[in-house]
């Protein structure tokens, strides 16, 4: 087991994967979770399996500046086959802020729209997000956590750069559905990668990415 400096990139990349997965599991239109700090990191080579990172992280609720949620996580990057997603296990210490009310408000608002919601360029060039689209942005943050996790290796570090386009798809069941085209920024190659994802959400059932596909980049 090798101890890693928290400020160097190997720990940073593994922590980004863990944070992405945690966002997918616990994020939603009412909650954004950001990586606050890396308290410690170790790397363990596991014969025939891969490389496992043990992390102690601090997460922050975007809407609560003073919040700090401690968390331990393990990220196992598999050996060889780069098409297999890393495996992430995590434990959160303490409770996350309850978002039932905000979730309910958002749910009812979207359900009662006459026309399907449609928007583009969130945030805009100046970095601004209209308040009524903030939950759409947070939902993308949660859903992109899945895409990021699925496509990460020790040589990548993905962040959600922008929602290029989002369109609501009305459903007959109780779920809300949004078809997104997002731009991911991959920091090691510095590439901007468009990605389509179909996202469903329900206040009680959380976020699901039912379909996703990488799109061709423009020259």
């Amino acid at each position, binding site marked *: 087991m090798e101890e890693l*400096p928290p*400020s160097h*990139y190997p720990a940073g990349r593994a922590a980004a994967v863990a944070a992405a997965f945690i966002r997918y599991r616990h994020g939603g239109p009412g909650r954004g979770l950001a990586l606050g700090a890396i308290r410690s990191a170790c790397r363990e080579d596991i014969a025939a399996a891969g490389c496992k990172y043990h992390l102690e992280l601090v997460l922050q609720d975007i809407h609560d500046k003073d919040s700090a949620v401690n968390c331990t996580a393990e990220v196992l990057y598999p050996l060889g086959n780069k098409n297999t997603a890393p495996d992430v296990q995590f434990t959160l210490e303490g409770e996350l802020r309850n978002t039932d009310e905000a979730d309910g408000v958002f749910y009812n608002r979207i359900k009662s729209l006459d026309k399907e919601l449609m928007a583009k360029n969130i*945030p805009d*060039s100046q970095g601004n997000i209209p308040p009524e689209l903030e939950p759409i942005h947070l939902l993308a943050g949660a859903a992109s956590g899945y895409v990021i996790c699925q496509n990460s290796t020790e040589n990548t570090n993905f*962040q959600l*750069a922008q929602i290029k386009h989002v369109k609501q798809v009305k459903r007959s069941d109780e779920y809300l559905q949004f078809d997104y085209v997002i731009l991911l*920024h991959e920091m090691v190659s*510095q590439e901007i990668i468009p990605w389509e994802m179909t996202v469903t959400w329900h206040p009680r059932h959380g976020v699901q990415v039912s379909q996703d596909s990488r799109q061709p980049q423009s020259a």
Partner: protein
Amino acid sequence: MRILPVLAALAAAACSRRTFVGDQVLRITPSDQEQVALLRLLDQQTDPEVNYWRHPTTLGHPADLLVPSSSLQEVKDFLEHHNISSCIMIEDLQKLLDEESKTMREARRTKRSSSSSTFDFGSYHTMEEIYSWMDALVEDHPTLVSKIQLGQSYEGRPLYVLKFSTGGSNRSAIWLDTGIHSREWITQAVGIWTASKIATGYRQDPSLTAVLDSMDIFLEIITNPDGFAFTHSSDRLWRKTRSLSAGSHCVGVDLNRNWAAGFGGSGSSSDPCSELYRGPYAHSEREVQAIVDFIRGHGNVKSVVSIHSYSQMLLFPYGYKTAPAPDHQELNEVAKKAVSDLAAVFGTKYSYGSIAQTIYIAAGTTIDWAYESGVRYSFTFELRDSGRHGFLLPSNQIIPTATETWPALLDIMVHALEHPY
């Protein structure tokens, strides 16, 4: 009765260029035709050398007469002798001219200085707005700030650098650049704020004053103007230049992989379609060559700070190899202090270390070239944030980011000042 701007009147009177100290303009009111005739005669004589601004034509209309100081007594005697009433309209023409010049200068300055110091630093601006503001800054601080053009970009845009200097000749210097990657908009915005801070902080801030009393500061705000224009017109997330590559439909070179330091190594690409495309050869990009020529030609640059976003890091050489730089220990200490002073402002946490350890291996970077060219105090900032907004940092974070980065920049500059080599 309004007096025409005196300068205009002088032009009309076709006076030869000279000073007008003590010269007066008299308003003369003839009371009969005889007096009118006398006044006309006065003009026709070469001595005294008087000049009508308004000719004596008819009764009831006053004439205005410019009288040189040497002829004043003579003319006044003449008027008195013939009982022609007059009064002094302008007591000293030169004084009036001087006051008028001053007022006009001040009016121009007020018009533009209200834009240099009241510029909206908390918004993102276009290239035209930034260039216009730079001119205003120079006009408002003419003894401290000047603008230099290093050359031209690929598409022919000027490469402007602001020079901050309190005098001397080829003093040791600090180089700062922002916007080398055009999509990193927070950096150009911080560059503008910082330029203003340097201009207004001289003689206010003791550390800055100590630096400027011995050293010059050069600041290139829009280091990649073609890319910057493209982020406004077409693709907000454009990083590279807009140079065309032979045999490829892809455009642009990564300016931070184009420098002759480990050029061609890992962490840069030979593929023109890559965001890390290093270019066909080192310094192939005009934007890089211009800086290389300037720093080499200057010969006395002691620190290079190249500003990027995002990740919240303060980095030093090397990027192209993992081996520590000879000055690693000292650079690490400087970075540690700078990052601590930055955090003290709003609590923003930065990590620090060499490029290769902290962020990734990257060959052909600005600060590796600077360091290997003998510039010991070479640093790269990666400004806010750590990924939540990334390149699309909200404009309400511009001023906080600039404010917290300033003490870190100052730490580096002061260290360069106090450790000459």
